[in-house]
């Protein structure tokens, strides 16, 4: 199965590029000129995102390094353990929406400590793979188009994260427990 998945990942991008270029060329589009014209926007878009991302990463950095995240963790740990969430993965549920690299580091530690095929290893893998870094996505996607009023998007994103975590615990206990 891993071979098939690797094969799909390896082929996807080249196939899409070949497909787009061939159709464009067939339709008589000046492929090189138009490609470059589009690609140049990538630089400006990237630069525009920097201030938004910087602001968000600084706030997350302060919040984590000060120990404030650990305080919240202490508050939620007991109720979360009550509903059957193993205590080793509880920090992951708070880090995951905030920091992609932070969460990946945490999962790597868990997998190294408990082994990739342990229950904790499988659960942490499922949690890491099943949701995205909500604050990163909000910052980058809305920052790129200068949205100031995000309305309910953050709340809905966090609801999705919470449901994803509970679903991960539930399905892992069912399948691997």
């Amino acid at each position, binding site marked *: *199965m891993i071979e098939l998945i690797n094969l*799909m*990942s390896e082929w*996807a991008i080249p196939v899409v590029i070949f*497909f*787009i*270029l061939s159709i464009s060329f067939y339709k008589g589009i000046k492929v090189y000129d*138009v*490609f470059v*014209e589009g*690609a*140049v*926007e*990538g*630089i400006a*878009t*990237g630069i525009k995102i920097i201030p938004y991302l910087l602001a968000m*990463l*600084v*706030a*997350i*950095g*302060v*919040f984590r*390094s*000060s*120990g404030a995240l650990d*305080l919240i963790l202490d508050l939620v740990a007991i109720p979360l353990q009550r509903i059957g969430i193993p205590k080793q993965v509880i920090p992951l549920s708070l880090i995951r929406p905030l920091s992609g690299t932070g969460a*990946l580091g945490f999962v790597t530690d868990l997998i190294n400590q408990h082994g990739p095929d342990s229950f904790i290893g*499988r659960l942490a*893998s*499922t*949690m*890491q*793979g*099943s949701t995205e870094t909500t604050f990163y*996505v*909000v910052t*980058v*996607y*809305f920052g*790129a*188009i200068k949205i100031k*009023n995000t*309305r*309910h*998007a*953050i*709340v*809905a*994103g966090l*609801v*999705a994260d*919470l449901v*994803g*975590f*509970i*679903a*991960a615990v539930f399905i892992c206990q069912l*399948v691997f427990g």
Partner: protein
Amino acid sequence: MLNKIWFAMIAIGMVVAAVNGRMEEVSVAILQSTEESVRIVIKLIGPMSLWLGLMKLAEEAGIVQGLARLFKPLAKVLFPKIPVDHPALGSIMMNLSANLLGLGNSATPLGIKAMHQLQSLNKNSETASDAMCTFLVINTSGLTLIPTTILALRVGAGSSNPTEIVGTTLFATACSTIAGIIANKLLIKVGSLQI
């Protein structure tokens, strides 16, 4: 919302740091975060330029519009306010496909492209539209068929069966995405009642 969250995270963090005596860690973290933000964007610019170039071609060749039409049945439910042949739907479909295949580096630029196109339909350019919120939630909920990063990590850690988490991940991410879409629809309703 972001103004309050941003201020609260920094203010609470600083008060806690003062009490805990962790000011040194905090000042290191602040400088490291600023460097990290530029590093992330530098890494993003390459794939973003590639995909924006390809998307420009795909638009001129009519491929994006074709994808948008394929996406019609689902788009009617998820994005009822967007015209059925609008290129934004094509970009959204490209972004979702990249996410499903676990190509995160390609999904982000395609998502930004889709946001730009959604912005052209937005009445108030500083306020997120319903479609933008729906699209954002689908992305934050991490809808994927192949969790590439975690599979690589498990292979690296010597797992005897690295792909055994694909099924559980699919279940969890499907629950997360459905919950996000429902929460989003409910919050849109609540918001419109207030006005």
